[in-house]
């Protein structure tokens, strides 16, 4: 839902019940995808805190409401809460650029992680393979810019399908990892 107004309060107050249910479901999905593993957090608490924090805020015109609530407000709020709890990083190598990895840790380990990534993806999924290579080459670069520079450009629905396959692969790997 793209908004023409900058007031979150106005936008939220004007939602129909059905729209509200959709927004909160998407927020739950975002929470579970990103923080679902973290036992220090409660989904409902985080969503409620996000809504309360967002209610008095303004949003850039034309921005998508769910994107703003999840990527701007929930992320910032949760990061703050987790830091306050025990000053722990949210993800092991989240927002850690390639150069940081090399200078911080050993290059050998980095090479091993890259090799493992290529191995996990395999050769059967060319688009996922491209995405992983982009990630390895420049973790800070925008994937959408990279993909649109290809000839022919990759349509969005193809990227979304690749995302679904990636999520399926992650779930499979995590289950396997949990089972030892």
């Amino acid at each position, binding site marked *: 839902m793209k908004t023409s107004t900058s007031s979150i309060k106005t936008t939220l107050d004007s939602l129909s019940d059905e729209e509200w249910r959709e927004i909160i479901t998407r927020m*739950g999905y975002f929470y579970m995808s990103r923080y679902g593993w973290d036992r220090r957090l409660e989904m409902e608490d985080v969503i409620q805190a996000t809504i309360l924090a967002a209610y008095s805020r303004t949003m850039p015109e034309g921005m998508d409401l769910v*994107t703003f609530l999840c990527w701007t407000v929930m992320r910032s709020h949760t990061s703050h809460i987790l830091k306050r709890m025990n000053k722990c990083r949210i993800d092991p*190598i989240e927002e850690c650029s390639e150069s940081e990895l090399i200078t911080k840790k050993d290059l050998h*380990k980095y090479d091993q992680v890259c090799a493992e990534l290529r191995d996990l993806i395999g050769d059967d999924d060319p688009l996922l393979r491209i995405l992983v290579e982009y990630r390895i080459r420049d973790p800070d670069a925008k994937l*959408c810019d990279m993909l649109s520079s290809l000839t022919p450009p990759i349509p969005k629905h193809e*990227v979304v399908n690749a995302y679904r396959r*990636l999520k399926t692969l*992650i779930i499979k790997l995590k289950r396997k*990892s949990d089972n030892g």
Partner: protein
Amino acid sequence: MVKNRAQEIRQLAISELEQLAISLDREFEITSTMPIEEIEHELREMGVDPRRLQSLSLDQMLSGKRLSKNAAYVYVSDELLQDEPIKVKELILQLRYLGRQHRYEEAMRVTEQAISIAPNYWRAKNSYASLCLLMGDLDKGEEIYLRLLEEFSDNPKAVAAGLHGCACAKEFKGKLNPEEINVLEVSRLYEQALELDDSRANTRACLLINTVLSGEVNKSRKLIEESRQYEGFFEALSFELAERTAREYAANIYKVVQVFPIWLRNLLDGSGPELSRFESTSIAY
């Protein structure tokens, strides 16, 4: 060692894949644009029932509290402990702390320790019963309270606590919904408890709420006038109103508060009137 290293590399690689998924989501606004049916399906796959989320309204979110489906809650006493053996006293103080923190399983273990040290100590048994209620075993909790009434029949404080507990058990069994509870019976139990121990501010607050719910308006007004002199009454009433308001099936506490005199409503809302108005409105309902 080699296996551990391989596992570590695997974990880091999985984390990188997750990071890639997050980047894709952010850049292509996938969370916002994926069909809602698919989002719901994914949530179920992750073990979350979407209906659980969808039952939360914007009003509940903005009110700063969500409605709890669990009817039971606890008022932790801060009554001075004077004659208890030192070890028991220590355990009771720990138990009170854990109770305020809502760490009921740990509190239960401490209570069991206290009972093993002092099997005839009524407070420990009373706490045990309260914890049974909080942990969902309403029948067992009520049974212990009833036994407390017999075992300590010569101790007015213990009997008062037992009567209060029995009333709570009945309220929780009816999910605090007056349509599911014999409100008059519950009121009588609170009343008897208060007759035996008039220092019980929490019992006073519960009695007042149930008296209003049972429609005994004049009696409730008399009780308010009497109670305003008792230490801790306002705090206990405020606590009871807040806890009951936060519960899904509880009575509409807003309507209960409407029966209170203006000075008390102002006081509870945090907008306390000036002293002269306080005095003049206290008798004019």
